[in-house]
């Protein structure tokens, strides 16, 4: 059985939505009757914006449950995609942590109930199986597994790297928590109310304005809204790098290996620390300090970008260019330097 505390920990689930709905709160009276909720929603968003973290206040369960839909209402009213993504990622990280500590019964209840991780709920079964050193506790129907796992770019999430039998994919507890957390995130990103349908009473509109200002300021100071300069190199990047850059520009979450690869590659071709850090600013979980630390560390150690073979095993290789598909380069750096040479030559020829 889910408790009220569970609704506060997982305020996006169907039961929490029902709970809020039956309170029958009118948006116009929200600010007067529940000032705590408004200020908690503001606090949540401030922390999401500045630190990328969705905190949990165990002391006030009702406020915590209510603050979630209010925070989402604010996001819809602002209509900023970066904020929406950052909120969803921060929330999903919190959910993942909570889920890892939950009992099996609770996990089953949350996953199977319609409307929580998917419209119809997941086909999930608790069953222990040991394979070598790995201890699998769960099996999930492949259609549910795929609906989330295709969003991960890390090769360990490919279905072929999991035991699959009779329609079910085996998962460790940790893996299941990660999948469910991702599903929570996707659900948040899917559901949105267009800005033009939202009318807010004066008091709330003021709070929303403040958050909007915060977003603007953060973007200006931290993200610096620098468009990632993909075009400066005029197509000299190998397709794998190009692909990652395009996703970074869109603010999509890159996998750990993708981040390292991009970092090493850019440092190898002589980009400055600052320039490399800039590439990651749009990451939904961007943290300047941590990123700077990684970049500096990689620079000091002098790591070389991964070989094509290694990238292939991670599913990062995108052999859309002839040089790649014909195996004419063994490392993306070779591609870059060769292309730089060829395009330089072409340019000087056309100038003649």
């Amino acid at each position, binding site marked *: 059985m889910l408790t009220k505390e569970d609704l506060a920990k997982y305020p996006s689930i169907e039961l929490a939505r029902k709970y809020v709905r039956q309170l029958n709160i009118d948006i116009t009276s929200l600010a007067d009757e529940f000032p705590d909720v408004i200020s908690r929603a503001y606090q949540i968003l401030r922390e999401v914006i500045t630190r990328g973290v969705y905190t949990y206040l165990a002391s006030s369960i009702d406020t915590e449950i209510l603050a979630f839909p209010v925070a989402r209402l604010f996001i819809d009213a602002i209509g900023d995609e970066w904020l929406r993504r950052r909120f969803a990622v921060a929330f999903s990280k919190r959910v993942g942590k909570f889920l890892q500590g939950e009992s099996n019964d609770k996990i089953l209840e949350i996953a199977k109930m319609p409307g929580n991780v998917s419209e119809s709920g997941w086909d999930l079964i608790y069953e222990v199986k040991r394979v070598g050193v790995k201890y699998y506790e769960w099996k999930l129907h492949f*259609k549910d597994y795929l609906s989330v796992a*295709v969003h991960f770019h890390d090769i360990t999430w490919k279905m072929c*790297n999991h035991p*699959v039998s*009779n329609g079910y994919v*085996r998962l460790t507890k940790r893996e299941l928590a990660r999948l469910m957390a991702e599903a929570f995130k996707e659900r948040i990103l899917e559901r949105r109310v267009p800005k033009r349908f939202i009318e807010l009473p004066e008091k709330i509109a003021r709070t929303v304005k403040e958050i909007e200002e915060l977003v603007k300021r953060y973007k200006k100071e931290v993200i610096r809204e620098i468009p990632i300069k993909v075009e400066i190199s005029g197509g000299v990047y190998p397709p794998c790098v190009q692909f990652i850059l395009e996703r970074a520009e869109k603010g999509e979450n890159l996998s750990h290996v993708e981040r390292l690869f991009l970092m090493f590659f850019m440092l190898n071709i002589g980009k400055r620390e600052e320039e490399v850090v800039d590439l990651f600013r749009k990451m939904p979980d961007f943290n300047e300090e941590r990123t700077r630390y990684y970049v500096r560390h990689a620079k000091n150690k002098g790591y070389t970008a991964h070989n094509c073979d290694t990238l292939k095993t991670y599913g990062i290789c995108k052999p859309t260019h002839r040089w790649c598909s014909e195996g004419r380069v063994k490392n993306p750096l070779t591609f870059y330097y060769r292309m730089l040479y060829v395009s330089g030559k072409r340019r000087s020829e056309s100038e003649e």
Partner: protein
Amino acid sequence: MKSNMKTVLLLKSLFEAYYRENDIPTPPHFSKREFGFMLWDKEGMIRHKTFYSRTEFLTFLRKKVPKNAYRSAAYYLDPEAQNMEGKGWVGADLIFDIDADHLTTPCKEIHDRWICMKCGTTGIGKKPARCLNCKSTVINEVSWICDQCLNFAKDEVFKLLDFLFDDFGISEKEVKVVYSGHRGYHVHVDNEAVKELSSDERREIVDYISGTGIKVENLGLIEVSAGGRKFIIGPDLTSEGWGKRLVKSIIKVFSSPDLDKVLIETGIPKRKIDILLVNREKVVTALSSVPSRWDILQGIGISIWKNIASAAIKKTAAQIDEPVTVDIHRLIRLEHSLHGSTGFRVTPISVTDLERFDPFKDAIIFKGEKEVIFKEYCPEFRIGDEVFGPYQKGQKVELPLSAVVFTLAKAVAELL
């Protein structure tokens, strides 16, 4: 190679008789499907066609007598809409395509031909990068089919079915195998769980079945240290999915007379291969036991096992063509229609009948005889129990109607 008028007329009249005399069944949920047709006298395809009733469907086939007929794997709210946005995609069967053309078979070197479009030089086997005579790169390939390549394709179908049944838990009655009427087979899965899968999700299933992206460490094949010693541990026959498939495939490879050939191809050093060859039975026993023992041979470390594993994975993966599965708007051949390049029937086969199915017999429908003249070299082929050819350019021969249709449709012969 254009066919002459007389040829087209004969083919069309034979197709017409077929559609008139047979009540072609409608595919499941036919009113939500898009249909496509190619006609004898027009270039291009008629798309976005829909039928509201079975009668309308049959009348269309009998009146238009299509050269090729297709239907969508998808169901739509409005299949008639001219663009994909307007159609309202509701779901699609999961379709797999196995095409003999994309499999490496020895018969290709015998029956496939190429023609240089610039100087007309021809040759046998796969087309060269450049014409051997004039060095032109514009070369047409003329592919043929025979028992060997279609049997290779059938073997891949069996591999695919094994994945669908064992790993994906799909039941036999949810699967339909269809001989395409030419070079291969389609496998249709009609099951609630797969209906709404996105393109990306379908691609992931293709990757699973073709073994793309496997890291053997994730299947449990790793080196661990304990008590200052290193051990190799790995999956066994009680494992699931690719772990079990890997063990089964290695056992099969080590039990096969081609073991030496397989090992040489992996690039493992000669002296290691010698160890493995001498101990082949020991390997089979060790991997067949539960838990399996991977650590039995002195000098065979984890990297050698990884080499063997990737060869074993290739052997047991099914070679399916990704684009057909991933494209959720794709038109596929209509079951029971006739294939315009062979005159063979697009034939659904139940899983139990697949082993016995003979495309050169069971997909043949025409009876009677007719004389044709060959306008191209025609390799040997079989219809039913009779083998025909090879025929030389200019040769006149009287052939049974099915063979006539086949050679006319393949455009190597024409009517006198």
